């Protein structure tokens, strides 16, 4: 690579002025396109494939630790766990039976009301490769991408509640924004009253803010927030958070309301990708 000897490109005193100008222009153009249009989603997807080895390596110690702890857990421990899991499964199954009958009843009632039956979604489990928690950005990297039918905007759940949504998809990995990311807003309703509002991220993993509730809104600490299904991104009826603090602001039109997310954000290793209706994961 001796092209640099050509002094049009590299002057030892002045540096690579021309090339820098070209590259800066290219970077600015790329940012503008990325910010305003979805045109570079494919380019990002290619880049995410290029950096996959880095993500894999970052995750390797954790994965190895998990494998090791599984290998080393004693027989007694496994038997104990097995017993516990069987008991849990039994309880879950009884609960499921009850829910099934409720679902049937619900469908019948909906039918009576002439309402459209809600399309049930399917979920697929995905592992978390990396967690990227800045004060101003809460992202996680998943080990599932286009190969499993993941797409931008897809909701992410765990056993306790809503986790976030996919923002960038690569061939084998995807980035998801947690609901606590300052750029995230989840359409929610207060389960007790049905009042709809938005739950906005604060950047802190254990706090959401509800900035659009008027001072006289009927909300109190302990109220559960569930997804309202408005906006069409998150499915309806999943738990999101519990209201922790309500502080009316006499001078302002809106009260200051904060809530604690129910999902185990930043602590789980597995999350569920939610597939609506017909579109779905390849097995």
């Amino acid at each position, binding site marked *: 690579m001796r092209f640099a000897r050509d002094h049009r490109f590299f002057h030892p*005193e002045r*540096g690579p002025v021309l090339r820098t100008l070209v*590259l800066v222009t290219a*970077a600015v153009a790329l940012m503008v396109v990325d910010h305003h249009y979805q045109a570079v989603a494919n380019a990002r997807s290619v*880049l995410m494939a290029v950096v996959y080895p880095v993500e894999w390596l970052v995750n390797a110690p954790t994965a190895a630790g998990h494998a090791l702890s599984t290998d080393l857990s004693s027989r007694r421990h496994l038997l104990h766990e097995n017993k516990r899991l069987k008991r849990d499964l039994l309880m879950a199954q009884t609960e499921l039976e009850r829910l099934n009958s409720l679902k049937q009843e619900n469908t019948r009632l909906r039918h009576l009301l002439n309402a459209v039956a809600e399309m049930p979604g399917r979920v697929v489990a995905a592992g978390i490769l*990396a967690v990227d928690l*800045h004060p*101003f950005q809460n*992202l996680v990297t998943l080990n599932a991408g286009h190969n499993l039918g993941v797409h931008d905007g897809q909701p992410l759940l765990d056993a306790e509640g809503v986790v976030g949504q996919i923002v960038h998809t690569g061939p084998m990995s995807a980035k998801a924004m947690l609901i606590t990311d300052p750029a995230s807003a989840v359409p929610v309703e207060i389960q007790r009253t049905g009042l709809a509002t938005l739950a906005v991220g604060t950047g802190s993993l254990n706090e959401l803010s509800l900035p659009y509730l008027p001072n006289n809104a009927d909300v109190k600490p302990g109220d559960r927030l569930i997804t309202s299904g408005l906006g069409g991104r998150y499915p309806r009826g999943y738990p999101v958070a519990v209201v922790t603090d309500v502080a009316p602001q006499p001078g302002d039109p809106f009260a200051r309301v904060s809530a604690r997310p129910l999902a185990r954000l930043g602590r789980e290793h597995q999350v569920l990708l939610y597939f609506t209706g017909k579109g779905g994961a390849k097995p």
Partner: protein
Amino acid sequence: MKGRWLRGPVAVALTVFAALVLTVVPMPGWGEVVRPLWAALVVFYWVIALPERFSVGLAWIVGLLIDALTGSLLGAHALALTLVAFLAARWHLKLRMFPLWQQSLAVGVALALYAFLLFWIDGMAGRMNHPLARFLPVAVSVALWPWIYALLRAVRRRFVPA
């Protein structure tokens, strides 16, 4: 030996790879705010040492990879890192003559520009941001520079033919 000429590029690529891994490896809560700007430091060194082989073009590509890794706006780190590489390339003759503490100051200037650009881009793109989270890593990086410099110089002397 036949593959000998490859050792240099492979060594440089491995240091960049290590910097990328360190850029995204998970840290405990406070560690996130003081994480050194590994990639910028490594790029800065290689541009000073080999300005005719490692320059703004490669810096741009490394920046793009960081954008893909961290999910930032595509081109943000590419732009910032290109300008860091440009400053390093422009001053590389002087920088090589500087004592280490003066070099650290120059690193500080370049990285402050880097952090400022990213902060500015975040602001324009409407992404929330905290100034401290952008500028504290600059201070940490400057403090680390002498060690990074010594380490990478050892790598260069061992693997990269002059």
